[in-house]
C-alpha cells in the first residue's frame, strides 16, 4: 500500500508490485462506486422491450423521459425546486446576519449557541417530524410547499450560520473598521464591504442548502400527500402504486440526481465543511 506522501516515486526496492496492487485496488473501488450509478442511467435510456438487457450496444430512447414529462412527475419536480429554493432563501436572509454577529461579537452565550446548533444536527428527523406533523394539521400547513420549506429550516439555518461564520471570520476587521471611522453604520459596512467579499462563500452555502433540501425524503414523505409531493416521493410512488416500471423509475432517478451531481462538482471544495458543520476545531 502506498502510504507515503511522495509524488508517486519511491526509492525502496521491491515496491513496484505494491504500487501495482494499490492501483488495482483503486480500480476495484472505482468500479464499486461507479457501476451502480452507470447502470441506473443506462437503464433510463433502454427501450421497454430490452429494459433488462446488458449488451453495451443499444439504441437509446427517450420514451421514459417523455412518459415522465406527460405525468405528474413534472409538478413534483417543480415542488422540489420551490420548497428547496424557498427554504434556502429564508435560511440565507435570516442566518447570514446572525453568522456575521457570531463571527464578530464575542459574548458569553456564544458557545452555547454553537452547541445548540450542533444539537439540531444530531437529533433524528423523526423527533422533528411528529411535532411538525401535529402542528401542521392544526395550522393548515400540511401538504404545502411552504410547510416543507419551514421544516427544512431545521437543518438549513444551522448550516448557514455555521458556514457563513467561518467565511466572515476570514475577512480582516481592519477593512470594516476603516468604514466605521468614515461614518458607515455596522450593517451598512456589512452590506457594502463584508458581504461582497464573501460572495463565493455565500454561493457555496446556498448550493449546499439547496442540495440538502433537495435530497430530503423523510419529511416530504410524511408531510405531503399530493399537492406538495416532491420528486423523491414521486419516484417511490412509481414503485408502490404504478407497478414496477423500471424504465420510468430509472429516468426519474436520473433526473433527480442530475442537479445534485452538477452542483457538487461546482462546490466540492466546501462540501466537507458543510457535511461536518459543527465538528472539528476552527
Amino acid at each position, binding site marked *: *500500500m*502506498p*502510504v*507515503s*506522501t511522495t509524488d*508517486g516515486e519511491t526509492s525502496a526496492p521491491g515496491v513496484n508490485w*505494491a504500487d501495482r496492487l494499490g492501483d488495482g*485496488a*483503486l480500480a476495484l*473501488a*472505482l468500479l464499486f*462506486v*461507479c457501476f*451502480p*450509478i452507470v447502470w*441506473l442511467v443506462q437503464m433510463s435510456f433502454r427501450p421497454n422491450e430490452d429494459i*433488462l438487457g*446488458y449488451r453495451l450496444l443499444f439504441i437509446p430512447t427517450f420514451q421514459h423521459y417523455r412518459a415522465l414529462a406527460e405525468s405528474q412527475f413534472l409538478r413534483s419536480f417543480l415542488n422540489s425546486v420551490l420548497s428547496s429554493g424557498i427554504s434556502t432563501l*429564508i435560511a440565507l436572509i435570516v442566518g447570514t*446576519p*446572525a453568522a456575521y*454577529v457570531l463571527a*464578530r461579537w464575542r459574548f458569553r452565550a456564544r*458557545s452555547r*449557541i454553537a*452547541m*445548540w446548533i*450542533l*444539537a439540531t444536527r*444530531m437529533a*433524528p*428527523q*423523526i*423527533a*422533528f417530524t*411528529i*411535532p411538525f*406533523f*401535529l402542528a401542521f394539521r392544526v395550522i393548515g400547513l400540511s401538504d404545502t410547499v411552504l410547510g416543507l420549506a419551514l421544516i427544512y*429550516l431545521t437543518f438549513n*439555518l*444551522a448550516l448557514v450560520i455555521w458556514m457563513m461564520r467561518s467565511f466572515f471570520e476570514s475577512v480582516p*476587521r481592519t477593512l470594516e473598521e476603516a468604514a466605521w471611522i468614515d461614518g458607515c453604520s*455596522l*450593517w451598512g459596512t456589512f452590506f457594502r464591504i463584508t458581504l461582497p467579499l464573501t460572495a463565493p462563500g455565500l454561493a457555496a452555502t446556498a448550493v449546499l442548502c439547496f*442540495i440538502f433540501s433537495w*435530497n430530503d425524503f423523510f419529511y416530504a*414523505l410524511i408531510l405531503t400527500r399530493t399537492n406538495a409531493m416532491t420528486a*423523491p416521493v414521486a*419516484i417511490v410512488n412509481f*414503485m408502490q402504486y404504478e407497478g414496477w416500471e423500471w424504465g420510468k*423509475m*430509472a429516468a426519474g432517478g436520473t433526473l*433527480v*440526481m442530475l442537479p445534485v451531481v452538477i452542483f457538487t*462538482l461546482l462546490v*466540492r471544495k466546501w*462540501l466537507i465543511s458543510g457535511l*461536518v458543520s459543527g*465538528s472539528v476545531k476552527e
Partner: protein
Amino acid sequence: MSVRAVAVAAQDGEVPARHRNAYLLGLLPALVVLAAVTLAPALYLFVTSLTPASPTRPDSLFDFSDPLENYLSAWSDPRFGESVWIQVKLSVSTVVAQVLLGLGVALLLNRRSRLLTALRTVFLIPMVLPPIVAALIWKILYTPDVSPLHRALASSGMPVSSLITNPDTALWAIAVADTWQWFPFTMLIILAALQMVPREPIEAAQVDGASRFQILWHILLPAIRSSIVVAVLFRLIDSIKAFPLIYVLTSGGPGTATQVTNYYAFTQAFNYAYWGYASAIAVMLTAGVFVLSLAISRAADVRIDE
C-alpha cells in the same frame, strides 16, 4: 472585569458600545426562527410523549393522567428492544466498514497526481446522491429479475436468491448499500487529515528502513486519530437516522428483520397513529444519540463543540 475578560476584549479589538444593539438586531431573528423550528418542536415532542395521543381520541393530546405510560410500555415492548439491537448491529457494522474502506481508499489516493485529484471527485458522488436514488439503485441491484449481478451469477451457474427477502441477509444487504453511499464521507475526512501529516517523520522512518505497515501504524494512524473519531461520530449519528434505504429495500422486513428503532418509531407514528408512544421512542432515540456522541467524544478526548 476579570483579567481574562480584559484579555479577550483586547485581543478582539473591543466592540464599540454603539454596535451592541446593531449586533442584537442581526442575531435575534435567527435565534427566534431557530427556537421556533427546533426548540418548540422538541418541547412539544416531549409533552406529547407524556400523553396517549392518537387521532381516534381528540382529547388524548392533552391527557396527562398517566405521563410515564409510554416509557413504561416501551420498556416492556419486546419489539422496541429488538429494534434497538438491530440498530446496534446496523450502526456498528456500517461504521466499521466505512472507516476501514474509507481509510484504505484514502491511503491509496494520498499521492500527488492530477489523475488522482480528478478521481477524488468521482468518489464524492455516492455521498451527495439523493438517498432515494441510492435506494432505487440498490433496489435494482438486489431484485433478482432485474439485477445485472443476479443474472450474471445465474448464467454462470451460481444463482443467488434475493438477499433482501431473506431475513438472515436483509440487514447485511442494507449495510452494504449504506457503506457504498457513505464510505466516501469517511474517506474524504481521513484524506484531508492524511494530507496534513508532516513529511519529515515519514521520510526519516523510510531512511531507517521502516516498512509501509510500520509507517502506517506508528506515524500515520496516531496523526489522524482525531479525524477518524470525528468521522465515526458523524457516521454513527447519521446511521441512526437511516431511513430511505430501509423504506425502499425492505420496509423494515422481512418480518421485523430490518426494523431499526427509527423505523419502528415511524411505523408507530404514521402507520398505526400511536403519536404518544412514537414520541416517547423519538425522545429516547434523541437522548441516546446525544449521550452516545458525548461519551465517544469524551472517551476519545476530541472536542466536537467550539
